[in-house]
């Protein structure tokens, strides 16, 4: 399949969760049965947060998959996956500010500072923002070698996001645990597969 078609397929898949959420939101506003539970704001919060982490993990999976299986075409999708992670976290943040706290800035700021879970999450969003901004061709050219270094921040962002995920659940840590194991695997692979170490081994 030619690349533009493949990209269209990936866009379609990446937009499915958002489309589903909008559909459910429409059902809710229209007083129809929907899946958002009796506490939709809480549901939307978890939903957009989970999808952010999934896209971060997907983006982090691209390098290992290329190296292990030689699927070099995957690099063509890394930017859009990263930008989808950012898009879902923007929805997550909007839900927090608009629906959950309805622009109650004093409380919002207090919560960000006072609750470690929210501090971690907000730090991750702040760090992710420059990565989204510098994802254009122009910025990649302008930054040169620094671009790669800057984008290594995604390792830290992934860790912060998964810690945030762990801290937000009450007792059932199953999902954050799965996220954490995948993240550990993806980051661990990078330690193991460092070119320097490889040279020493041979």
């Amino acid at each position: 399949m030619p690349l533009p078609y493949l990209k269209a397929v990936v866009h379609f898949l990446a937009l499915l969760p958002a489309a589903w959420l909008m559909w459910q939101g429409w059902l809710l506003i229209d007083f129809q049965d929907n899946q958002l539970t009796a506490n939709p704001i809480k549901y939307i919060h978890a939903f957009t947060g989970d999808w952010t982490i999934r896209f971060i993990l997907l983006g982090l999976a691209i390098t290992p998959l290329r190296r292990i299986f030689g699927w070099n075409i995957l690099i063509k999708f890394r930017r859009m996956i990263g930008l989808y992670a950012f898009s879902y976290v923007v929805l997550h943040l909007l839900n927090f500010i608009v629906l959950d706290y309805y622009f109650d800035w004093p409380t919002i700021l207090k919560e960000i500072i006072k609750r470690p879970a929210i501090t971690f999450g907000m730090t991750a969003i702040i760090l992710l923002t420059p990565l989204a901004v510098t994802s254009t061709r122009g910025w990649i050219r302008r930054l040169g070698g620094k671009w790669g270094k800057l984008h290594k921040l995604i390792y830290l962002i992934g860790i912060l996001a998964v810690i945030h995920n762990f801290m937000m659940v009450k007792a059932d840590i199953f999902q954050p645990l799965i996220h954490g194991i995948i993240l550990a695997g993806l980051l661990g692979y990078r330690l193991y597969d460092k070119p320097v170490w490889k040279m020493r081994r041979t």
Partner: protein
Amino acid sequence: MLFRFLKSSDVKSSEITPENIYHNRREFIQASALLGIGAVALGLNIPQARADVLANITRSGTYDTDEKQTPYRAVTGYNNFYEFGTGKDDPARNAHTLRPRPWTVKVDGHVENPGDYDIDDLIRPHTLQERIYRMRCVEAWSMVIPWVGIPLADIINRLGPTSKAKYILFETLVDRKQMPGQSRRVIKWPYAEGLRMDEAMNPLTLMAVGLYGETLPNQNGAPLRLVVPWKYGFKGIKSIVRISFVKNRPRNSWKRLAPKEYGFFANVNPDVDHPRWTQANERRIGEFRRRDTLMFNGYGEEVAHMYSGMNLKKYF
């Protein structure tokens, strides 16, 4: 297999929405339309069988709130009942495997009339009362629920605790077949809760057997659950099989799981935050904006005297 316990009568009643609920729903829709933002409807698409109507309920109204009651669908579709799964809609989906009859409650400890009581023998001597209470979950959401039950004090008086009984311990059923969520050890089963004797004897404390004038749906803790309206919802232990009169303060499940986050007393208190979120406000289910949380969930007049002189920041 999954539907083994569903009787044909369950299916028939699923079509029926009582008129009062229907009218509540209309008001609810109008109220939310006025907000201009529609993000308040209740998102549930689980088909729900209505329970049996309870007869001879007295309604004194003494302790009732006149706030808008949370719709039946939300009360019975949005639950924390980890015995049936940790998702909020898991209990409504999975609790059909629970068999609330026959049901035996073991009464033991420092009590004059210990023994294994059939649920109906335990309840029948008393007159059922309706109590419309606020329910404040520790997760900062709340509901208004018309419970049906009997004051716990009436049951306690009949069982006759001795002077050694300082606390009451309650335990939920353990049965993986009836409670599929118990195959995962999210909590150390059985779920356990406790009250100090004066709290248990407080006239607000209710042993509920129903809501909205009908028997308790399984997901709400059938056939017998505790309702302590000035405390966070997790104190309201569900599907009780044991009532034990004890000398020492019992270890309750959430405190055991995370002692820094959940206490034994668990009184609703806007001034003592959960370490991970504020308890100063809450979202009433069905409303858009958060509202201020009230001290003792608004029941201070009835309960504050029990805690005078106690440091509620320490004993949270």
